[in-house]
């Protein structure tokens, strides 16, 4: 595949691995948080860690949209479809996330609720046109990347005069979350997580640009490198972070120049600003209440806001006892620190959200990397020696 294989080239990866090894300072560790689940996935899927020096560690961040959604909002979504005899559409991963009382959208579907997986907001609009007598609710989730398509759908629904289409808006904002992590006492005072630098979001940054990160790189003295989602992007960005750290710099740099600019996608930003406004605060799973970290639908589009048309009570719900998703999402704990990991919590039977999505840290650890666990007896990386090509 042109434009994809180039960024997965094993030969280049080995060269880059050597370059990184040559530049790291052996007397320190480099804790680099990859914010996005897309990066986490790439690191595990391609075995990037195997090519990095031992003292460069990836700390997995909260950038997995289904992982950070609080349980109460999923309870809300289930109630929305069940109480209103509606069609609820959402993106695939969301269907399996556990809600309160061992429910999930998938289980609600099995029990008779009309829950449908869609690939885009356009599919949801199409359903609204096909079933004019049904309320069609789009359960919108995701970071800045998925927000513009939701804005487009709302504007189209308005233009087409659709009376049965609403959006249950759960769009969240990346910079607010990164800032919140850096402000948390664990990072600032207790030193439980020492995050030395960030691999910044790739697709999110294609929309918002690199500028929004400049404030906290400066304020918190942490370098940020906007990194593409391919494994070579991850390695190259890690090298750029290591160089900044070695030189004592804390700047925002852009590795993903083939897509991301400083100002981002102005058209998309304008569209989002037209349809959405900031919420005063929003609950993130793992981070708690984060001020100005999410979007709601503006009043002039209120007729398309599920929270206006239907009753959406504030639900305070708690994680399963023992589930460490909150700490894992903050980078304070590793999936293997959780007692439930691999015992009762597996991708087939997820207890916490991090085990659901392939972008979640627990699912990535379990599905791709559990042979690395030292406590699994005999678990070891087996290498086949290939004849030199």
């Amino acid at each position, binding site marked *: 595949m042109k434009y994809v294989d180039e960024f997965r080239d*094993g030969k280049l990866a080995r060269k880059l691995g050597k370059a990184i090894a040559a530049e790291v300072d052996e007397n320190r560790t480099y804790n680099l948080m990859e914010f996005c689940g897309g990066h986490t996935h790439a690191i595990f899927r391609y075995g990037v860690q195997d090519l990095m020096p031992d003292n460069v560690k990836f700390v997995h961040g909260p950038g997995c949209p289904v992982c950070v959604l609080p349980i109460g909002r999923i309870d809300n979504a289930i109630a929305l479809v069940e109480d209103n005899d509606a069609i609820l559409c959402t993106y695939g991963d969301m269907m399996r996330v556990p809600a309160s009382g061992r429910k999930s959208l998938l289980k609600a579907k099995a029990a008779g609720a009309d829950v449908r997986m869609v690939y885009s907001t356009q599919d949801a609009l199409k359903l609204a046109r096909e079933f004019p007598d049904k309320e069609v609710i789009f359960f919108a989730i995701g970071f800045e990347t998925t927000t513009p398509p939701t804005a487009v759908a709302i504007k189209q629904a308005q233009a087409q005069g659709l009376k049965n289409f609403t959006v249950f808006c759960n769009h969240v904002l990346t910079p607010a979350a990164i800032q919140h992590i850096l402000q948390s006492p664990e990072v600032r005072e207790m030193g439980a997580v020492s995050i030395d630098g960030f691999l910044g979001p790739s697709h999110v940054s294609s929309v918002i640009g690199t500028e929004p990160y400049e404030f906290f790189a400066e304020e918190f003295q942490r370098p940020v490198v906007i990194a593409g989602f391919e494994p070579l992007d991850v390695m190259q960005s890690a090298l750029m972070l290591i160089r900044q750290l070695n030189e004592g710099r804390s700047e925002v740099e852009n590795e993903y120049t083939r897509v991301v600019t400083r100002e981002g996608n102005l058209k998309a930003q304008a569209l989002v600003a037209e349809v959405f406004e900031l919420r005063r605060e929003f609950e993130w799973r793992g981070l708690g209440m984060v001020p100005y970290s999410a979007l709601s639908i503006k009043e002039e589009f209120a007729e398309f806001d599920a929270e206006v048309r239907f009753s959406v009570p504030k639900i305070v719900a708690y994680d399963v006892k023992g589930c460490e998703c909150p700490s894992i999402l903050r980078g304070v704990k590793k999936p293997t620190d959780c007692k439930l990991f691999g015992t009762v919590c597996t991708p087939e039977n997820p207890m916490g959200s991090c085990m659901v999505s392939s972008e979640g840290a627990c699912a990535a650890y*379990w599905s791709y*990397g559990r042979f690395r666990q030292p406590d699994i007896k005999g678990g070891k990386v087996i290498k086949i020696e290939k004849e030199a090509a």
Partner: protein
Amino acid sequence: MAATRRFPMKLDLKKGKVEMVHGSGGRAMAQLIEEIFVKHFSNPMLEQGNDQALFNVDAGRMVMSCDGHVISPLFFPGGDIGSLAVHGTVNDVAMSGAKPQYLSAGFIIEEGYPLSDLNRIVESMAAAAKKAGVMVVTGDTKVVERGKGDGVFITTTGVGVVPEGVHISGDKAQAGDVVLVSGSMGDHGVAIMSSREGLEFETEILSDSSALNGMISEMVEAVPEIHCLRDPTRGGLATTLNEIAQQSNVGMQLIEDDVPVHEDVKAACELLGLDPMYVANEGKLICICMPEHADTLLKVMQNHEYGKNAAIIGTVVEDEHGFVQMETTFGGSRIVDWLAGEQLPRIC
């Protein structure tokens, strides 16, 4: 002909629809069976018109396998539910090394289903059976109310006889064995996806749906000591290898670069967020054998029309955890785990 005498008005295979009466057990059902099923499957055992097929069996060990087919859509690039219902069961029987001989076919049809489409499906099923060298010798027809089915569901059962001295089983993989596949992975799943409503995308990939008994019979003749054969259907290569690893209590080590995947399949998977290792196949097999037999088997497969892209993809290793590991194209290692959840509903 008997058909014209018993049923003066022929079934309307152009505009007619399946009605509840076609499953009622009366004359209408007899006509449906005669003018569609018996017509295409035609063989002496079926034509006897009994509720069971009577046949002689060779001495030895028989195998039997059953498979329900609920695929959506019913017609897809490279096949349809009819040919798939033959291939699926023929392959399941053949993976024991057996020569599949007879099939049963149970149809559950939704009221209102076009007779023309049913006729097409049965015609395709008969052609697939003929090509695979098996006979459909008994069957059943049920009709369910509109809305209670999804067009047509077909269940087939197959029986066959295993040659003397052949003992192929999923629990026989041993450390040191070589893992082969008969061709590119993921074609069927991607072909189905490309034709799904709401998801149509342009690709030239056809389903690989085919009967592998011919190729297997050549493989078994060349190397009767094959350890394992299995078709990587739902859950794909990854899940099937994990099944074998668990049954045999071994681990596996694969090399990603050596796993054949069509460029189009790779691209479609990239777009849809799928992994070709987990995408279904309906005309491919995994073969595990001793290293000294690997080249012979590879050649037998490569000389066959269904095994042209056969390849050696890895080895069996000792591992009490039964992990299937893979050296990635990128140069790292990872686990290739069981499929979790559902990658694609109703692909077979």
